[in-house]
């Protein structure tokens, strides 16, 4: 059985790690950006970004003060035995979000949408958000994503229904135009990680776009060659835009383009984009049935072993 005390400990540490320690794949991508910088301004900007991120890892303080929306992505083993069940898992998650906020590992950012009331612990109606994937086995895996407000609020997340007649051309035009609009003056903190969801209902498309942006590692591709090719084409095309770090015109425009799809109704193709900022935050840990804990670099959300 997976005990409550272990859950509390692991969930808290995962939230803290997400806020303070940039994932390894993002770290490597930024290092690469410094290496391939073409101007001193570009090099300085990426170097200062990475320097600040490294200090956060060392001092265990926030990589960015905007710790955004608290999002939990749980993989639950089909035979997992959780003390108190899933309801307890959610209750502990909420408590740990509040604890992390009180201790300065999350900023108190979640408010009532109309009154502005700030409960002070980032917990309220429908927040934090929980997403589940059920997998074989007895383990559970927690991934915490601190989803920044910049990348979410300023057009980083968009949706459009495309006619079958417009197909991939319509889809790609929507993506290019959305990304340009969202990155103006550095709004979504580019170069971002762009997640694309194609197909499904509007919310399915938006969900898989978010998962693509937040849970896939930079450098991975969709296993289907047609989709992988769309990722590569879009990555190359968007990097022709000259948006640069914080919209300054210096350096790459996008760090990765990750595409996921769902089967759709014959009437139309939903397309959603979800951007994550250059300070993308994510941390994952796996809890074994016998209490063994393993920190993971890759949530492998889509169960591809990559």
């Amino acid at each position, binding site marked *: 059985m997976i005990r409550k005390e272990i859950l509390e400990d692991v969930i808290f540490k995962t939230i803290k790690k997400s806020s303070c320690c940039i994932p390894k794949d993002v770290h490597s991508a930024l290092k690469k950006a410094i290496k391939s910088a073409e101007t001193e*301004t570009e090099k*300085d900007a*990426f170097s*200062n*970004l990475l*320097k*600040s991120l490294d*200090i*956060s890892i060392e*001092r265990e*303080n*926030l*990589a*960015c*003060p*905007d710790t955004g929306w608290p999002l939990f992505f749980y993989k639950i083993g089909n035979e997992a035995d959780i003390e108190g069940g899933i309801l307890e898992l959610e209750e502990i998650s909420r408590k740990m979000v509040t604890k992390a906020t009180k201790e*300065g590992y999350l*900023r*108190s*950012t979640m408010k009532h949408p109309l009154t*502005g009331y*700030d409960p*002070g612990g980032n917990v309220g109606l429908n927040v934090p958000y929980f997403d589940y994937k059920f997998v074989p086995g007895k383990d559970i895996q927690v991934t915490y994503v601190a989803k920044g*407000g*910049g990348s979410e609020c*300023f057009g980083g997340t968009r949706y459009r*229904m*495309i*006619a079958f*007649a*417009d197909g991939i*051309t*319509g889809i*790609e*035009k929507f993506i*290019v*135009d959305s990304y*340009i609009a969202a990155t*103006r*003056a*550095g*709004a979504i*903190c580019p170069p971002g990680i762009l997640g694309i969801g194609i197909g499904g209902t509007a919310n399915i498309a938006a969900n898989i776009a978010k998962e693509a942006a937040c849970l896939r590692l930079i450098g991975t591709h969709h296993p289907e060659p047609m989709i992988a090719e769309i990722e590569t*084409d*879009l990555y*190359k*095309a*968007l990097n*022709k*835009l*000259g*948006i*640069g*770090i*914080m919209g*300054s*015109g210096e350096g790459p425009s996008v760090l990765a383009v990750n595409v996921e799809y769902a089967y759709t109704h014959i009437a*139309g193709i939903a397309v959603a984009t979800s951007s994550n*900022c*250059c300070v993308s935050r994510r941390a994952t840990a796996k809890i074994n049935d016998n209490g063994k804990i393993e920190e993971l670099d890759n949530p492998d959300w889509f169960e591809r072993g990559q």
Partner: protein
Amino acid sequence: MAKYYLQVPLKEEDIKKIRIGDLVYFSGEAFTCRSRLHRYIFDEKNVLPFSTKEKNLLIHVGPVIIKENNKWKLVSFMPTSSIRFEKWGAKSIKEWGLKAIVGKTTMGEETAAAMKENICIHATPQCVSPNLWLDSIEIKDVYLFDELGTIEAAWQLHLNNLGPFLVDMDSEGNNYFDSIDAIVEENRKKAYKALQIPEDFKYTKLY
């Protein structure tokens, strides 16, 4: 591109010289402000409980500040998107006598006009590097903490060469990002071409 090390209170003659693309650093007094404070003052008709006369630098930021051993400790500091308070931008420049605003992104036309009229600039961070600024900022005091909460309160700061920030709006009405927009607009055609999207492509209207 020039570098300016500015002292608050900011003087009109110093601000006048600065152009888009320049880098600026600030020393002296400043205050933090987010939309909740703007609304509290301008819409809900409250009075700002401190004078901005000698403190004419607004930083648009929601800092993370905790109390440690009965003293305020700054944990994280990253200016945030100023376009959000465009509604109150011109008003704050005029009524508070601001000479500079530091915030992410940029601001709109109404604020640009007020900047031209009142000699004021907007400057933006070149990257997300909150840790590199912590040592340049001292927390002196806070106003409206109980009313607005820790992020939206008006923190009173003392700065020691806080920067560099890129000047994206100057007192002549220029905007740095307009020049980037023009480049990106040209590049949009290259991206379309790479993806074989016709420039005159029109979506089928579904609704």
